[in-house]
């Protein structure tokens, strides 16, 4: 079972944990806006339609590769402030190693495979976040 949600509403972790299920082993990752370097606001732009399609494909790949009972990807878009949750991913499986590996896969690959762009507000200026080489390296380690 796959749950994909892209929304400008706050992520409700209690509800997402409930929906993510109780299938023996559940691994989750939650990302939160940090106030690094004086960032006061984060704007998440995305490509409607293509985003959901990319996330669905990613969740399906994880489900097939690790025999997941459930895969969840929730991503917030729009304006956020430090402390707001940006992303929640969850992998439910019968066994712990599958859940842990699939969860790491989902968050690593989400950073390279899904059309989201971050824009940070610092003081009166805004700047688009640059892609980091470490993100490519993290995603690449999941290649067969």
């Amino acid at each position: 079972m796959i749950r994909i949600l892209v929304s400008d509403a706050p992520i409700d972790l209690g509800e997402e944990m409930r929906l993510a299920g109780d299938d023996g082993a559940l691994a989750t990752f939650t990302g939160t806006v940090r106030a690094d370097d004086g960032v006061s606001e984060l704007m998440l732009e995305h490509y409607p339609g293509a985003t959901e399609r990319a996330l669905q494909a990613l969740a399906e790949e994880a489900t097939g590769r690790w025999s997941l009972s459930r895969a969840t990807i929730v991503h917030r878009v729009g304006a956020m402030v430090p402390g707001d949750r940006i992303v929640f991913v969850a992998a439910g499986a019968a066994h712990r190693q599958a859940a842990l590996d699939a969860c790491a896969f989902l968050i690593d690959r989400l950073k390279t495979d899904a059309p989201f762009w971050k824009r940070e507000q610092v003081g009166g200026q805004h700047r688009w976040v640059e892609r980091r080489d470490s993100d490519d390296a993290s995603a690449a380690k999941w290649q067969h």
Partner: protein
Amino acid sequence: MAVRILYFAWVREQIGVAEEDVNLPATVETVGALIDWLSARSDRHAEALASRERLRAAVDEAFVPLSAPIAGAREIAIFPPVTGG
């Protein structure tokens, strides 16, 4: 060929529009050729699209390399490397 072009993030900001409908000549056969063709539309296009290695693309919502063919495409998106998660 009538195609809708979408721009995202700083590409969108620099060009100044989020999308535009264009009529492509048949000689424009790849995403890379499309970028060259779009660059001629205005100074803003030229500037935003100047640095090829900073651009990525999707054809009909699927990520593709810049060398990908665009025959039959209805929607082509051009954007910077993604930074979600």
